């Protein structure tokens, strides 16, 4: 194929990715956008088999030509066979893990591509090429190893608590220095051993970097690694002289950066403290759970009565809803209330759940119309006119300590101001605190009723109680 035509098509595919992201501006156009992006990606994959000779040119001209086509096609087929069922079957609560895993394999692929290209170029590589290769290999390996660890944490295959050991921070610093030193060695020697060392050190660094991050901070790390992988792909694009990879990688880099910043802000903490907090934090007193103060706990019937005589109910879903897989039951209850003429809305905190927008996906899965999902800034002024707030498995996002207790880990994080409402009902299993590990004063408030138990069970009971009223 003619080189110009090939590049032109590459540009069109880059545009399709831009359109894919643009589509996400509204739920209406989002799916079409994603399909455009997928079509572009498919077209790119077909197209690359017809790449002009200059691109499929090889260091040693002898082995050039499409000798490995069949093998490549089989590899693609294998990837499809692995990837599609995983993507189809995954539960929406497990999205963070899946994204982490896909991100990791992407980063790994980018690192491998650069390594192969580097091996092939050998001493013919120019310094900028080598620098770009070094960047891709380091960041790709960190992204790969880090993502695998986050996956293990989120799947709870390993502990979700920060893993900190004596001298940990020196080990991390040492590894980082090792990575940088080996990078200099690669650039200087252009050898293969140095590259291998650098790759292994980078993998080690990726692991060490993520280990001390606490379970619920992991999504921030995933998003950061996502941005890194994007930049890696862009750097590979530089080495391979492919505009498409540059544009696509940069778009991902930008989106990862924005999401990371957004999560950090919505959680009221800096990125730095997320990543390195475990080293500096004074170990929290694990918030002596269930202390002697009295709370008002109620039965499903009490809750049903409160709800039944309300005019306006706001449901605040949180991470516990995801854990309990209660999204369908919540919706059933909301429909029941609506059919009784009660005004029902969902108040969505930006970091409720474990990924940005996680609650929206879970509730959309349960067919909740997205118009009922109200963002924090919009729902907060309506709490004074709300009779009952039903907090389903959320804690930190409604904890008034964020406003009142300077120095607590979530101080400064904007919260859903549910204490303004007439009644607050908490569905949770125990008096244990939420992710941030701090006591929630609201649980002891006279207007609060607690319904203990798994959110799904509790909701099922409330639904049948409501039906009997």
């Amino acid at each position, binding site marked *: 194929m003619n080189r110009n035509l090939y590049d032109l098509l590459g540009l069109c595919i880059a545009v399709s990715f831009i359109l894919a992201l643009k589509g*996400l501006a509204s739920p209406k156009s989002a799916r079409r956008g*994603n399909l455009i992006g997928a079509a572009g990606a498919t077209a790119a994959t077909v197209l690359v088999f017809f790449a002009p000779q200059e691109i499929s040119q090889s260091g040693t001209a*002898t082995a050039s030509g499409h000798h490995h086509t069949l093998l490549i096609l089989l590899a693609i087929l294998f990837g499809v066979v692995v990837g*599609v069922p995983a993507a189809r079957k995954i539960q929406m609560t497990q*999205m963070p893990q899946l994204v982490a895993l896909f991100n990791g394999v992407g980063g790994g*692929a980018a690192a491998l591509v650069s390594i192969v290209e580097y091996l092939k170029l050998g001493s013919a590589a120019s310094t900028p090429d080598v620098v770009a290769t070094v960047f891709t290999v380091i960041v790709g390996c960190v992204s790969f190893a880090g993502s695998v660890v986050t996956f293990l944490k989120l799947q709870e295959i390993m502990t979700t608590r920060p893993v900190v050991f004596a001298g940990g921070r020196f080990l991390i610093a040492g590894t980082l220095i090792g990575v940088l030193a080996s990078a200099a060695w690669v650039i200087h020697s252009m050898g293969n051993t140095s590259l291998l060392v650098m790759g292994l050190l980078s993998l080690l660094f990726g692991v060490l970097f993520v280990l001390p991050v606490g379970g619920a901070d992991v999504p921030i790390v995933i998003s950061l690694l996502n941005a890194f992988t994007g930049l890696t792909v862009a750097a590979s694009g530089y080495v391979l002289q492919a505009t498409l990879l*540059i544009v696509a990688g940069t778009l991902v880099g930008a*989106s990862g950066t924005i999401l990371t910043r957004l999560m950090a802000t919505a959680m009221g903490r800096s990125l730095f403290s997320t990543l390195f907090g475990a080293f500096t934090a004074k170990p929290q007193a694990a918030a002596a759970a269930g202390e002697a103060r009295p709370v008002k706990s109620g039965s499903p019937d009490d809750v049903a009565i409160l709800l039944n005589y309300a005019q306006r109910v706001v449901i605040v879903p949180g991470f516990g809803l995801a854990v309990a897989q209660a999204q369908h039951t919540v919706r059933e209850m909301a429909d029941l209330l609506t059919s009784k003429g009660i005004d029902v809305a969902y108040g969505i905190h930006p970091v409720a759940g474990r990924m940005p*927008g996680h609650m929206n996906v879970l509730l959309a899965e349960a067919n909740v119309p997205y118009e009922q999902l109200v963002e924090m800034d919009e729902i907060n002024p309506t709490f004074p006119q709300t009779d009952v707030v039903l907090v389903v498995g959320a804690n930190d996002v409604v904890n008034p300590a964020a406003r009142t207790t300077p120095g607590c880990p979530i101080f400064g994080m904007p919260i859903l101001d549910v204490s303004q409402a007439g009644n607050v009902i908490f569905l949770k299993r125990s008096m244990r605190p939420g992710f941030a590990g701090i006591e929630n004063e609201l649980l002891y408030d006279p207007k609060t009723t607690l319904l203990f138990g798994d959110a799904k069970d509790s909701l099922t009971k409330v639904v049948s109680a409501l039906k009997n009223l």
Partner: protein
Amino acid sequence: MSNGLALLSIFVLSVFIGFEVVSKVSTTLHTPLMSGANAIHGIILIGAITVADRAVNNVQLSLAIVAVVLATINMVGGFVVTDRMLEMFKGKPRKASQTGGEK
């Protein structure tokens, strides 16, 4: 203009596009954004295919083939799961808001 500079220009302009476009994404869709962006970097697949195609020995070839598998998982899986999520946001609201209208 040198080739390197052209690529740099393309990079810089893409940074702006990325920030502008992504900052307009509805907050409701941040999870699909994450997985969609994730799928997009699966495009490294074409890089993997290119290097696999011109691999000159078995080490290169096997590394490249692994890259092809990984990148395919990333790309295909990413788009499929994003589509699955977005499907839930589409169409349904209409049905559901009719339900809302019934009351």
